């Protein structure tokens, strides 16, 4: 392709670059983002990625309420896997408080995180197929995702805006039939995965459109700050769950799949394998989860049970203080990272000793990855933007905050 354009420049024909706006509201762009393209024919000479169309001021809003009031906002960051954001934020505040949550709660948080990861990867894989006009796998992925949404709805009461995790615990225990519900979803998932793999993994068109496209090699990927499936596709076995284990991930057995080329096809394969690893983790969780309370018993941090609130003066006072003044987090700063669907979701929180967050900063994984999009599509065709952009799995709510 490059040879052709060079020949064209030397010839007599007058040629000029074409400037094209792709987005912000383009049918092929999942998420509101604008790519300003400078084209030579169909080849991308230069591009500028423009984000911020979904900016809501998450970090400013977080400073206005109590620590607990930030939890619903975190649902809206990565709205495909909101539970992981809930876990990340509450973990950061707990780190600042210096408390340890109960054993059952840790397993519940691992369970909901892995469900969310499956949902996130299913969405990414489905959309990945959709981008190259394979509509059927997309619908199958959505069907399987729906089963998991039913499960999430049974656990949290909401499909997407979960707000399930609390500082010091979770909102309530898992429903009684959670294992059966999960197994139903898992059965559907494996039926679907078999079909999707059969349709995509050795599909000539899918491989041609994805293999060797959007390449980011390991060294560059680290320098750009890649994390998650995009980094692992380049062959770096970095996973926060292994590198800095949280919530007892070091007690659970799972493998970190890595790719070799760092292209879109490897990202697809890594995501596919990570779904299987998540299932492996969940099966261990079902076997190992202990009985016991899900919340810590410190009423300064978690709300007291309603019987205590209505019948004892201590409970009433604790409930009032907790709701009105908020959790009194000691002065300090902490950074807490969890492995999200797209990579490392980090929360940097600063407290000034009052009941409100002084500063909440979230490190969105796809923010670091999107800044390399210009590099990844440079010199490629316009048609390559779509699968590359999708294999990054940019989530508008997360990148724009």
């Amino acid at each position, binding site marked *: 392709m490059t040879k052709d354009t060079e020949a064209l420049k030397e010839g007599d024909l007058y040629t*000029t*670059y074409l*400037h094209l706006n792709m987005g912000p509201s383009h049918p092929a762009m999942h998420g509101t983002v604008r790519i300003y393209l*400078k084209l030579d024919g169909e080849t991308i000479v*230069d591009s500028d990625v423009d*984000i*911020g169309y979904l*900016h809501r*001021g998450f*970090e*400013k809003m977080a*400073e*206005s309420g109590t620590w607990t009031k930030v939890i619903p906002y975190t649902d809206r960051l990565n709205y495909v896997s909101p539970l992981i954001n809930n876990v990340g934020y509450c973990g950061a505040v707990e*780190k*600042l408080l*210096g408390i340890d949550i109960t054993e059952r709660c840790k397993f519940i948080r691992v369970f909901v995180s892995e469900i969310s990861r499956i949902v996130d990867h299913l969405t990414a894989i489905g959309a990945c197929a959709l981008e190259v006009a394979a509509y059927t796998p997309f619908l199958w992925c959505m069907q399987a995702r729906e089963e998991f949404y039913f499960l999430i709805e049974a656990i949290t009461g909401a499909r997407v805006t979960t707000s399930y995790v609390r500082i010091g615990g979770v909102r309530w225990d898992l429903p009684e039939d959670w294992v059966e519900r999960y197994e139903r979803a898992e059965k559907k998932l494996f039926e679907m995965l078999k079909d999707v793999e059969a349709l995509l993994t050795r599909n000539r068109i899918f491989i041609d459109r994805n293999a060797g496209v959007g390449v980011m090699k390991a060294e560059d990927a*680290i*320098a*750009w*700050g*890649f*994390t998650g499936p995009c980094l692992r596709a380049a062959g*770096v076995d*970095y996973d926060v769950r292994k*590198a*800095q284990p949280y919530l007892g991930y070091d007690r659970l057995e799972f493998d970190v799949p890595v790719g070799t080329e760092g292209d879109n096809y490897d990202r697809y394969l890594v995501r596919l394998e990570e779904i299987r690893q998540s299932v492996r983790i969940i099966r261990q969780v079902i076997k190992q989860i202990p009985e016991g309370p899900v919340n810590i018993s410190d009423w300064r941090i978690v709300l007291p049970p309603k019987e205590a609130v209505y019948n004892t003066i201590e409970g009433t006072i604790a409930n009032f203080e907790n709701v009105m003044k908020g959790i009194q987090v000691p002065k*300090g*700063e*902490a*950074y807490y*990272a969890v492995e999200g669907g797209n990579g*490392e979701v*980090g929360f*940097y929180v*600063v407290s*000034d*000793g*009052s*009941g*409100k967050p*002084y*500063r909440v*900063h979230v*490190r969105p994984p796809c*923010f*670091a990855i*999107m*800044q390399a999009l210009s590099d990844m599509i440079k010199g490629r065709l316009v048609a390559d933007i779509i699968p590359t952009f999708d294999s990054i799995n940019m989530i508008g709510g997360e990148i*724009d*905050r």
Partner: protein
Amino acid sequence: MSELISEIVKKRFGDAVLETHQQHADDTIVVKREALLDVLRFLRDELDFKMPLDCTCVDRLGLGEKPQCVEEAMNPLLTTPESRPTLGAGLKPRFEVVYHLRSLSRRMFVRVKVRVDEEDPVVPSATSLFKGFTWFEREVYDMFGIRFAGHKDLRRILLYPEFKGHPLRKDYPRRGYQPRIPMPNLKGDPVDTAED
């Protein structure tokens, strides 16, 4: 880990390291602005902190004051302009730019902080060492108005170019209003920044 990263850096750079702490087991180094790039380069090349994780900023305007004072100063509904308390006692210097770097081989991260004053909010850009900080520094510029010397493309990133002020500063009101932007002149030349 035998020796703390902050200790190694302190031994090497001496006075350029202003303070260190290990609050909640997060190794933190506060360095002088002149030494920032040297410390980052040392961390990257010799201690294998190759991955840029995060760059952000903290406005410490209200950190030393009573929380109510900050609340009243920020919320125009609570006070009139005359009775609004003035902030500024806070901690000096006002801004603290925070970098997080991760080492894949050591399986840990380190936090590097540099403090700058409101009058001279300029920090040397770390993008020459870590290209992954490109957008993060743009975001800090957008939200706090910190300028990064040597950054090749320091534009607003989340907000639009005509935005007035820097919203994550503590003295930017939570219910701040922005002026309307005049319609762009569509008859004029097409807006084009790229060179042809």
